[in-house]
């Protein structure tokens, strides 16, 4: 094994690791705030990647129907609650958020697709279609069960995952798609040939991680998310609405998922079910970090990327097994070291 192979594998591992790191952070955030193990994270990757590829080939992606349908369902649930609580003054806001907004986004997509807009505008439209699915999903599947146990929420997550994957197959079909790279440029670094897309991935991940850090450290909403994660009862007592925090964490997670999908779709062929396995590797990264610390989760995810890359060189048939085996010693160590953690403990 020569130095340039090592460099090449490292570059590949870092590119993937950066994506896993983003996903690990999103998983950790959602888990800390809502106690949901966010299995459907991967679907946002696939939805965004496939939507972008379809728009580039001049077709209207089925995402618009999922958005309209999901919005209508969430609106129906909200309206039912408003009627039950005699709070009809909420109706205009509900309709604007869950019906009007999706319709406007869908209309713009229908208008834009045949016009073959600039790639950046298409990316913005994909984000506009995919990101609202996060809060909508929280409203429909998780909010009614917000006080359920971690296990129940996990089972719900599996169900949501299968429903979304099924919808993905219905609307995107079984064929794999790739979107155009942001730029075709390549750079020579020594013997190494680095594609501009890889640099984009690493750069965008770093910017996004920095933005998340700013959100948590500087904004009152970021601090409210942390407060909810640290002490749920305390957060309720100062009047932080649990539902708002749930929707906010899902919004961030769907945004991160969608950005990840857009970043990797020029590098990897994405199928309707590819997102799951990518999301799972982010999850492994979060577990390597002990499901508690954001920097450790990011480091763990980077390690997953590198391990995957190097094991694909030595034992490509086993590369997934090697990555997933990694959690066994970590889990053993965690369970030996930690006492049982009370859910509501300070």
């Amino acid at each position, binding site marked *: 094994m020569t130095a340039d192979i090592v460099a090449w594998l490292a570059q590949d591992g870092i590119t993937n690791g950066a994506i896993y790191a983003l996903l690990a952070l999103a998983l950790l955030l959602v888990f800390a705030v809502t106690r949901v193990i966010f299995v459907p994270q991967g679907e946002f990757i696939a939805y965004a990647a496939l939507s972008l590829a379809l728009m580039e080939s001049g077709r209207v992606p089925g995402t618009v129907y999922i958005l309209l349908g999901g919005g209508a369902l969430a609106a129906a649930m909200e309206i039912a609650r408003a009627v039950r609580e005699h709070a009809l003054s909420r109706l205009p806001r509900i309709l604007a958020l869950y019906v009007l907004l999706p319709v406007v986004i869908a209309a713009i997509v229908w208008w834009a697709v045949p016009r073959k807009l600039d790639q950046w505008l298409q990316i913005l439209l994909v984000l506009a279609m995919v990101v609202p699915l996060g809060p909508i999903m929280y409203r429909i599947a998780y909010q009614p069960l917000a006080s359920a146990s971690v296990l129940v929420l996990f089972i719900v997550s599996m169900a949501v995952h299968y429903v979304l994957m099924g919808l993905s197959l219905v609307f995107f079909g079984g064929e794999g798609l790739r979107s155009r790279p942001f730029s075709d440029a390549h750079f020579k670094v020594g013997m190494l040939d680095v594609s501009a897309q890889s640099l984009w991935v690493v750069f965008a991940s770093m910017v996004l991680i920095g933005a998340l850090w700013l959100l948590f450290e500087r904004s009152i909403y970021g601090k409210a998310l942390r407060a909810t994660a*640290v002490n749920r009862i305390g957060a309720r007592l100062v009047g932080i609405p649990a539902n708002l925090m749930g929707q906010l964490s899902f919004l961030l997670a769907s945004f991160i998922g969608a950005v990840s999908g857009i970043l990797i779709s020029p590098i990897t062929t994405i199928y309707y079910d590819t997102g799951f396995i990518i999301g799972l590797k982010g999850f492994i990264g979060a577990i390597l970090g002990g499901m508690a610390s954001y920097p450790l989760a990011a480091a763990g995810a980077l390690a997953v990327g590198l391990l995957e890359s190097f094991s694909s060189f030595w034992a490509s048939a086993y590369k997934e097994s090697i990555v997933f085996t990694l959690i066994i010693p970590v889990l053993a160590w965690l369970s030996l070291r930690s006492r049982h953690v009370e859910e509501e403990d300070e």
Partner: protein
Amino acid sequence: MSASLEVRELSVAYGKVEALHRASLRVSDGSIVTVIGPNGAGKTTLLGALMGLLRYSGRADYAGVDLGDVPVEARVARGLCLVPERRELFGELTVEDNLRLGAFQRYRRADPTIGADIAGVYERFPRLRERRGQLAGTLSGGERQMLALGRALMAKPRLLLLDEPSLGLAPRFVREILHIIADLRKTGVSILLVEQNARAALQIADYGYVIEAGEIVLEGEARQLAENPRVIESYLGGGSGA
């Protein structure tokens, strides 16, 4: 708007066990009312129900409006605020962030006076100013109680529910905290104070209730309660209190 509280026949059950049985009490505007009683009598349960953390039967009117099944955050918005026995601080956030989050709903309304109120809390509790950048989890018991109280004040409450504010504090801190509580009344806040330290509570309260095994067994002016033989025997004897 008045901040009076009118509780009628409030009952709370955990499964089949009734922790509070038909409790009725009143906190009139701007007064300090204390509920004293032994451990496990249902004092914390009463406050939990009033804050919306526990389901209850019966009725609780606040400022003339039935609280019904109004969720916790809406009660906070109406000016109700609980400082719980366990304090429930955000241990991994700084003292100042804890205070800021106390005003979370005011941030959402873009209230411009939050900064001045943080300065006001620091004035009331100079110790918190010294520790402003420190994580809340590293504070001592007395400082944690100050922070819990300060965080509650940041919500601009009109009725404060205080659960055992003197618990676990050194006598010096007990006096300090109770002095601050008595002082709060001057700012127009009504206070419902739950205490095991009956002597201290009756000193600053206007009116008092005695609760035993989930039922209110005695009530009266705080001064009269302090002279009641039954109260003296059960709660003021034995040299307990500050």
